[in-house]
């Protein structure tokens, strides 16, 4: 009884081991290369699910089927116009031929290292071959003017011939050519970050600063100029308003004087009698206006007044 139980147990265990050895599960994100004593046999397995192999002799080597990442080291590279920049790149690649991949690179570590060599080299070449603008810019679009500031610092972009997109594409293409027998394909390659190296950055900051100060000075002087203009306008207008008013007022007064003179002359200058009466009335008026208690009058006996006084007797 006990013996038979042990036998069954042994059989079950052996059977389990054999089953485990002769099957393997390929997950959705994986692909498998079967090797026999280290040598690949048959086609690679790309379908997910359970699969069979010869137990003990054959080994299943799993590889990722998905887009895999590659992240470049930030490299310091001079551009064609001798500007030193840091270029940080990334790529996405895929194991397209696991069999070849296994033969050439064995595992992902090997692939990453090969990709480092290829992509870093290509990046270096293409960056060095092009002006900085070409790696920064993509198209020759016309920038939107940003108002007042752009009148001073022009919102213009240099014409480019290649452009970022194309350089990325060239690098990708060229790298794919070099890696075509590795069983991998670089699906996308892009510049992640491009930046000036420290010393250049300081220079750029200085340039940006001086540019801004130039704008600030322009604004300030524009303000002063405009203020002076308004001030001048004010003075001019003030003088013109005042003198215009004076002119008009004097004209009006003059006209009135003339009119009055005409009226007087018309009345007083009719004939001798009227002239006589006028001068008489005027002298009487003068008496009234000029004589007061502080006036001392010396009347001679032959004066007109006295004559009247005398005649009163």
């Amino acid at each position, binding site marked *: 009884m006990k013996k038979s139980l042990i036998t069954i147990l042994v059989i079950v265990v052996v059977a389990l081991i054999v089953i485990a050895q002769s099957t393997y599960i390929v997950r959705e994100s994986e692909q498998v290369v079967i090797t026999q004593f280290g040598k690949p046999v048959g086609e690679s397995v790309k379908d997910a699910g359970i699969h069979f192999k010869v137990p003990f002799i054959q080994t299943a080597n799993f590889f990722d089927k998905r887009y895999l990442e590659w992240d470049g080291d930030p490299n310091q590279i001079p551009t064609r116009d001798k500007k030193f920049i840091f270029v940080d790149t990334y790529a996405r690649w895929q194991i397209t031929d696991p069999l070849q991949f296994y033969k050439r690179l064995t595992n992902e570590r090997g692939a990453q290292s090969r990709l480092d060599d290829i992509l870093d080299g290509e990046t270096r070449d293409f960056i060095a071959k092009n002006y900085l603008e070409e790696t920064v810019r993509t198209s020759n679009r016309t920038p939107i003017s940003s108002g007042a500031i752009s009148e001073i610092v022009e919102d213009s972009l240099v014409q480019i011939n290649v452009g970022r997109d194309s350089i990325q594409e060239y690098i990708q293409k060229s790298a794919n050519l070099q890696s075509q027998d590795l069983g991998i394909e670089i699906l996308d390659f892009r510049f992640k970050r491009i930046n*000036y190296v420290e010393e250049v950055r300081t220079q750029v900051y200085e340039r940006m600063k001086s540019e801004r100060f130039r704008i600030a000075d322009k604004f300030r002087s524009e303000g002063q100029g405009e203020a002076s203009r308004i001030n001048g306008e004010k003075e001019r207008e003030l003088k013109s308003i005042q003198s215009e008013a004076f002119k008009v007022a004097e004209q009006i007064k003059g006209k009135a004087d003339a009119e009055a003179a005409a009226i007087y002359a018309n009345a007083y200058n009719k004939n001798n009698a009227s002239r006589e009466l006028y001068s008489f009335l005027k002298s009487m008026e003068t008496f009234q206006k000029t004589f007061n208690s502080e006036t001392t009058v010396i009347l001679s006996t032959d004066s007109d007044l006295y004559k*009247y006084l005398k005649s009163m007797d």
Partner: protein
Amino acid sequence: MAEFEFDWDKAKESFQKIVKNIRLIIVVVVVLSAVISTFFQVGAEEVGVVTRLGAYNRTLESGLNFKIPFVESVIKVPVERQQKQEFGFRTTSVGVQSTFSKRGAEGESLMLTGDLNLADVEWVVQYRIDNPYNFLFKVRNPEETLRDISESGMRQIVGDRTVNEVLTVGRAEIAGKLKVLIQEISNDYELGIRVEQVVLQDVTPPEPVRGAFNAVNEAQQEKETLINQAKSAYNKVIPRARGEAEETIQKAEGFATERVNNSQGEVARFNELYTEYIKAPGVTKTRIYLETMQEVVPKLGDKIITDEKGGNVLPLLNMSTKSGKAINQ
């Protein structure tokens, strides 16, 4: 420390008990784990992706679901949850007043503009997983991949614009363009995500040049102030001068009217008098003369009367005692 004595006998006894019931225990454990791994719940914001022996089998909606134990496994993917990635800063604590830190994220936000200046751009990408199958099985590290796409995309877009554009008018446009670009590349990669929104946060000049940029703003303000001051001085003076001019003219008009009216009045009076005067000139003249004298003479101060040869009185007259106003008739 509490004393603890290990009771070997008791332990042995219970171990034997376990051995005796080993089959039962195994069966119970197996059944229990089968039940537990059969039923599972998919949350409201998730879907469950079921794989059978590694291969994709089906996608389950939220609710209570079951699967074949040991053969099938489930991965839950939060497809309804809006997720976000931050670039150039990190939210350190979320709350009514969230706090942000820039540490470790400086390199993400500093970028070259098309005119080879530098700008510091911070942004947020909000996205949702819209294809759980692609998200799980097409790209390794999809989140990291999205970050890479987003960083390179932002630099591509900013690289095509001037620093002025990036800092001022271009903001909304950049966000819109980046959203489209990220989505395009994600579709190429079959990343299984949908970009909901790209939000630009702080877009500033880099720290070392910020002072200079502020100086521009200040100068712009200064310019406005100078102009406004000049305009205000203008407005203070000119309308007043206009009013004063109007006043001067009005006064002159008044003077003119008065002058003419007065002359007309005087002339009318003169004419009336003249009409009468002409009838009897001598009498009228005498009458007026005497009336005037009646009025004038009483008001006079000293009156000295001399005969026609009395001229020699004059030298003796002390004129200084009086006002000195003398009229020799």
